[in-house]
């Protein structure tokens, strides 16, 4: 994007249709705004109620994770990844561990792999629940937010029991996981899956069937598959245009190839399609969870054979996995020392956000928040 704030010029001209003199105006949204879900600033040029141009301003939450990582050893970087996509810290933990394990060729014990998949899928559900609640809050429905957070709380409680934190888990280690499941934990997760399966029906009754809601979202924020690929979108943003691409299915990592699940897609590419896909993804995650809990090994190690000092061989590697927001990738360039020479994260929120100015152009200002919300960004990840 080559536009900056100085280049936005305002016109005042006679509108041809009505002969009225209209004036363009700059509207600043954020960085502190409830609907931007964090510190995100959006400068929009509006003519009446129509958006002419928009400029996202990011970087308010930039902490330089990638640069900091160059001064830390690989285990020390894991807590920093918790703070990128703080709504699904488990997938971030996984991507860095997976990258280092791929580089060093470390074998992960089966039990650790299952624990990882279970926590990642639970985290995906928790993340989608936050999205569901806050998105509906954005477009004016209060009660779904309360229901979503009530059920998300159960996941956080389970994580708290497992690894001692509610949001910044720091659960995975290179070669396995830090904690084994405490006694009775697996049963609690099973109960939770049963509970959420029932609740999902209620969520649909509460929101999905609501005619006002459907009319509000249908046909806005629309784009096609070619645009999505050109902008290198991933996750639900891509699948809502009909491209069936899910790394859990197409490039299986961990033990995902042992489970049966569908990759929900839609062809409309609008906000409603993205809503429906995220809801369908919760159901698919529950399916994976059920199978993973059923096949969970009775006993076994939770840490593989790992050298005391982790020194990946000289070279570079890039791995990618499916996070709730899309493809999260981790690139490591190593010079054989215990610290990375260069580390780069491909953050899906950052890539998905790039399409926003295109989607907003020509839209009504009242649709702005609905479109921004449907992209599902986490600012910790956008700015890293």
């Amino acid at each position, binding site marked *: 994007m080559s536009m900056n704030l100085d280049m936005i010029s305002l016109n005042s001209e006679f509108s041809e249709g009505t002969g009225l003199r209209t004036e363009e105006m700059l509207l600043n949204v954020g960085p502190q705004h409830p609907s931007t879900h964090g510190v995100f600033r959006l400068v929009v040029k509006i003519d009446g109620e129509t958006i002419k141009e928009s400029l996202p301003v990011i970087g308010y939450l930039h902490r330089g994770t990638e640069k900091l990582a160059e001064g830390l050893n690989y*285990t020390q970087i894991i807590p920093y990844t918790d703070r990128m996509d703080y709504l699904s810290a488990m997938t971030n933990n996984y991507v860095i561990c997976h990258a280092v394990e791929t580089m060093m060729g470390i074998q992960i014990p089966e039990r650790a792999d299952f624990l990882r998949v279970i926590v990642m899928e639970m985290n995906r559900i928790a993340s989608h629940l936050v999205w569901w609640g806050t998105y509906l809050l954005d477009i004016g429905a209060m009660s779904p937010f309360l229901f979503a957070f009530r059920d998300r709380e159960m996941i956080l409680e389970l994580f708290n029991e497992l690894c001692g934190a509610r949001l910044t888990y720091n659960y995975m280690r290179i070669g396995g996981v830090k904690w084994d499941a405490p006694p009775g934990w697996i049963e609690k997760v099973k109960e939770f899956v049963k509970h959420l399966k029932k609740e999902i029906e209620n969520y649909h009754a509460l929101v999905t069937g609501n005619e006002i809601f459907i009319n509000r979202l249908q046909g806005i924020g629309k784009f096609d598959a070619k645009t999505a690929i050109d902008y290198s979108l991933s996750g639900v943003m891509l699948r809502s245009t009909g491209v069936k691409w899910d790394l859990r299915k197409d490039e299986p990592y961990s033990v995902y190839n042992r489970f049966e699940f569908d990759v929900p897609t839609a062809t409309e590419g609008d906000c409603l399609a993205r809503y429906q896909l995220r809801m369908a993804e919760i159901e698919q995650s529950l399916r994976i969870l059920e199978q993973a809990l059923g096949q969970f090994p009775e006993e076994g190690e939770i840490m593989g054979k790992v050298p005391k000092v982790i020194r990946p061989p000289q070279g570079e590697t890039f791995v990618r996995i499916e996070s709730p927001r899309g493809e999260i990738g981790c690139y490591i360039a190593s010079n054989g020392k215990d610290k990375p020479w260069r580390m780069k994260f491909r953050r899906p929120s950052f890539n998905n956000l790039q399409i926003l100015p295109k989607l907003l152009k020509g839209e009504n200002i009242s649709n702005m928040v609905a479109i921004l919300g449907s992209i599902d960004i986490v600012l910790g990840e956008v700015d890293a």
Partner: protein
Amino acid sequence: MLGFAKGLGYTFKQLTAKKVTHFYPDVPYPMPPRFRGIQHFSPEKCIVCNQCARICPTECIQLTGKPHPDPEKKGKIIDTYDINFEICILCDLCTEVCPTNAIVMTNNFELATYSRDELFKNLNWLDDNNTNVREEN
């Protein structure tokens, strides 16, 4: 408007549902046994190996040792031990590397203070923080 009415029906049902909120500041909120709260430090266990200070991702631990007062014994004993809770992220790595469990997590998590320098905790404070100490480490 059938879908709309169905949604309202679900909301109405919640009138009789069980409460899910906690009376947190009035009633203490119990945390599970593995919870990562403010660290407890036992000076008598510490062997001044410096591993906790080295693993800390935010470099919030500072420690110094002094020679053992008994000249016949080898090694060092701890002299000062400070954790700066302005930057500590309670990531659990210090307790993970400690070979003698001198530093362990507790279930206490209330760290709010009126002044930033109160967050700088020294050896005595960390030693006195000995309630709800975590069993598993």
